[in-house]
């Protein structure tokens, strides 16, 4: 083994560049036309298809697969986009194994579901690579809507509003749009700058302007938006991260997994991203998995996910856990963090209690992935915007307690923190807003 790989401390280039590239390559290489045809042939075109019911955006899956099988790939893409304009990203990041593919009747029949996610990617890739735009804007309504946040919920909402003829301004805190698609998910799930291509594809409908580097609560207030716009859609996600409390330490090597992933996603050269020899990730959700797997991919020698609860409570899907394990990550359960051990301002380890047993792990890096929170300070009108469980309270259409203000995605109390759910909420809120603006009852 290369000496560099086992070097102590937090260093870059533990692995040869080529190996790092390989580790970050497309998790599921795209299907070629022959593979897509063979796979599409497996679909039974079920009636009242379980896959369609399982999809949070209710894509007509049997129809889009049938369209692939008949060589009508653009028609297939439109079937997908009609329900989910971010169908391309969802095809890459959806936990299909717990959604559409879990209930596929061929999973029931032979334990091998139709590869719905892969087929969806195939169809959407064809349309997006051809830059085929399916939607035209309705005649201008003269109405203006502010969307706060350019993640999946914000983009889906903006697209649908624009289609209905409304003008949309998206305010994005960061210098780049895309939200978690751009800054959050693991790099190997959306290679080749896909998140940005998708933003371009979605906004190409027109009528959507994106203002980057504009944070609510700092550059503008919610009150200003409700004043200046006919409606507001809040989709700013969860900008706060939970703290570890007493077990934490202010030291180099102690970081939030969310920030670490965001920096990794924006890194121009992965070979220059430093990583510890030993990394401990605290948490049990998808962020923990993504941080751990990518730490390993950068060349960390030992990567451990330490989860506070038992195996069955871990939020990351069985498939994602397995993926992490295959890539060399150790997952340990019932680990309650007790103390981060430091030396000269540098993390050297972390101690846990596991049901009375004291466990000390050596680590140069401790990444905290113990959940994100709504930054309530953004909402200076918080008093009148009702919250629920620390998130914005919404009804099934996305309406908040404030008239003229809707919300969707992770910042709300609805849904399950999935990209696809955020898309559904953004889309449905847009329909609700449209109804409100065009005089329908709401």
């Amino acid at each position: 083994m290369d000496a560099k790989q086992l070097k102590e401390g937090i260093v870059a280039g533990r692995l040869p560049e080529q190996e790092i590239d390989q580790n970050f390559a497309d998790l599921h290489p795209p299907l070629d036309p022959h593979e897509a045809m063979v796979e599409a042939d497996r679909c039974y075109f079920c009636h009242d298809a379980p896959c369609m019911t399982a999809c949070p955006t209710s894509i007509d899956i049997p129809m889009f697969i049938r369209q692939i099988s008949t060589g009508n790939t653009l028609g297939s893409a439109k079937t997908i986009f009609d329900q989910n304009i971010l169908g391309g990203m969802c095809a890459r990041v959806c936990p299909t194994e717990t959604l559409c593919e879990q209930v596929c009747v061929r999973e029931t029949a032979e334990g091998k579901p139709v590869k719905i996610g892969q087929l969806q990617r195939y169809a959407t890739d064809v349309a997006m690579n051809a830059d085929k735009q399916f939607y035209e804007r309705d005649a201008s309504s003269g109405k203006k809507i502010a969307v706060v946040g350019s993640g999946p919920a914000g983009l889906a909402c903006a697209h649908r509003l624009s289609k209905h003829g409304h003008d949309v301004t998206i305010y994005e805190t960061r210098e780049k749009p895309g939200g978690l698609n751009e800054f959050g998910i693991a790099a190997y799930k959306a290679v080749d700058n896909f998140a940005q291509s998708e933003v371009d594809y979605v906004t190409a409908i027109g009528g959507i302007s994106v203002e980057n580097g504009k944070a609510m609560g700092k550059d503008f207030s919610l009150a200003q938006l409700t004043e200046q716009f006919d409606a507001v859609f809040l989709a700013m996600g969860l900008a706060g991260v939970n703290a570890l409390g007493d077990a934490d330490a202010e030291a180099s090597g102690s970081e939030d997994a969310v920030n670490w992933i965001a920096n990794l996603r924006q890194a121009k050269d992965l070979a220059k991203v430093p990583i510890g020899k030993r990394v401990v990730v605290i948490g049990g959700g998808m962020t923990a998995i993504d941080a751990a797997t990518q730490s390993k991919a950068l060349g960390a020698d030992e990567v451990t996910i330490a989860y506070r609860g038992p195996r069955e409570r871990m939020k990351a899907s069985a498939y994602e856990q397995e993926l992490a394990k295959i890539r060399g990550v150790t997952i340990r359960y019932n680990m309650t963090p007790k103390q981060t051990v430091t030396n000269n301002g540098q993390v050297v380890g972390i101690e846990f209690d596991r049901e009375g047993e004291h466990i000390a792990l050596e680590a140069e890096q401790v990444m905290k992935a113990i959940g994100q929170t709504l930054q309530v300070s953004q909402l200076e009108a918080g008093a009148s915007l009702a919250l629920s469980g620390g998130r914005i309270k919404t009804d099934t259409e996305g309406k908040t307690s404030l008239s003229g203000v809707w919300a969707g995605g992770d910042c709300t109390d609805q849904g399950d923190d999935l990209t696809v759910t955020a898309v559904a909420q953004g889309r449905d809120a847009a329909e609700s807003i449209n109804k409100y603006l065009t005089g329908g009852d709401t």
Partner: protein
Amino acid sequence: MADIRNNFIGIKSPNPFWLASAPPTDKAYNVERAFEAGWGGVVWKTLGEEGPPLVNVNGPRYGAIWGADRRLLGFNNIELITDRDLHVNLREIKQVKKNWPDRAIVASIMVPCEEAAWKAILPLVEETGADGIELNFGCPHGMSERGMGSAVGQVPEYIEMVARWCKANTRMPVIVKLTPNITDIRFPARAAKVGGADAVSLINTISSITSVNLDNFSPEPSIDGKGSHGGYCGPAVKPIALNMVAEIGRDPETAGLPISGIGGITTWRDAAEFLALGAGNVQVCTAAMVYGFKIVQEMIDGLNNWMDEQGHATLDDVIGRAVPNVSDWQFLNLNYVTKAKINQDLCISCGRCHIVCEDTSHQAITQELDGKRHFEVIDEECVGCNLCVNVCPVENCITMEPLAAGELDKRTGEKANPDYANWTEHPNNPSRVAAE
């Protein structure tokens, strides 16, 4: 082990699987390979009269339709009879027969409808030692425009006439190959029998256009932007062939006339079905052209195992066994009542049985129980049509269950009558035969 040796009108072969007259049997090289693979016999690709060999198109000769996973279901060709010199073919037939004396070699022949033409070629074929001849009255494409092939097969009088010429001019057994491109297969079969033919073989290919190129609007296969109807074969034509074989088997005028069964035979199971409907042996082409000659080994083995399991010692125990069960509709038992039954343990809940019954049939399958997808037959509505069985992707998940005698048919409110009763005696039949 069952004995599957075949004796068809005196022509012996180690098994009943022959290759039909077609591209796979055009030359010694192919036929040698076929015999090495285990084929019991071949019908050599059709010979024409002496003279300059005819020519084929130089573009595509074949078209196809496919099912799921691009499995070939139907095949079509516009290839003509052999385009090699007659004497080359005859020399090769003679040599191959010498090399493989236990295998059957039958020569297919197509010459103009003149006695002299047949008189000229028959001794040449006889000299090769071929076991018999097959008169190609079937090919629907190309040669039919020149008054041969199906142009002959569509006129029973010509069939009878040419069969008679052949019987008069050769000692070899004569098989007449029939075209399915007619209204009633019994007429050409009867003509062959009256003309003295020893047997008929069927079906030849069906006139067809497999598809149209939607970019340039040419039929496929496309020859420089134009297409001509070709002969359709492969698994898709098997049901048509089975019916025609059965029609000849149960026609009093042709009953007992030996039949070589042809049409979409792909597996031992297909072959056994042809035998059961009265074929004395079978001929195969498309399956070999799709998978190569090795498939015959599965056919031999599968037929053997089935016969062993069923206790059939020889082919004669199988041949024609299904013929008495082929009936006119009017004699089917109207008191036989079946209901579809869905095995919930095997059901994968695709819902197709429900939607086809709901949309296109009798609204006899539920889609929900207690708010969950659940598919179950409503006996009060089920007419026993079998559509759900046919569309279900899981074998044996839906079965048709006959009502036992005395059991209530919830649809009609009547108890199942154990007695046989058909349409001829039914009260609704205006021309019924009185039962007394």
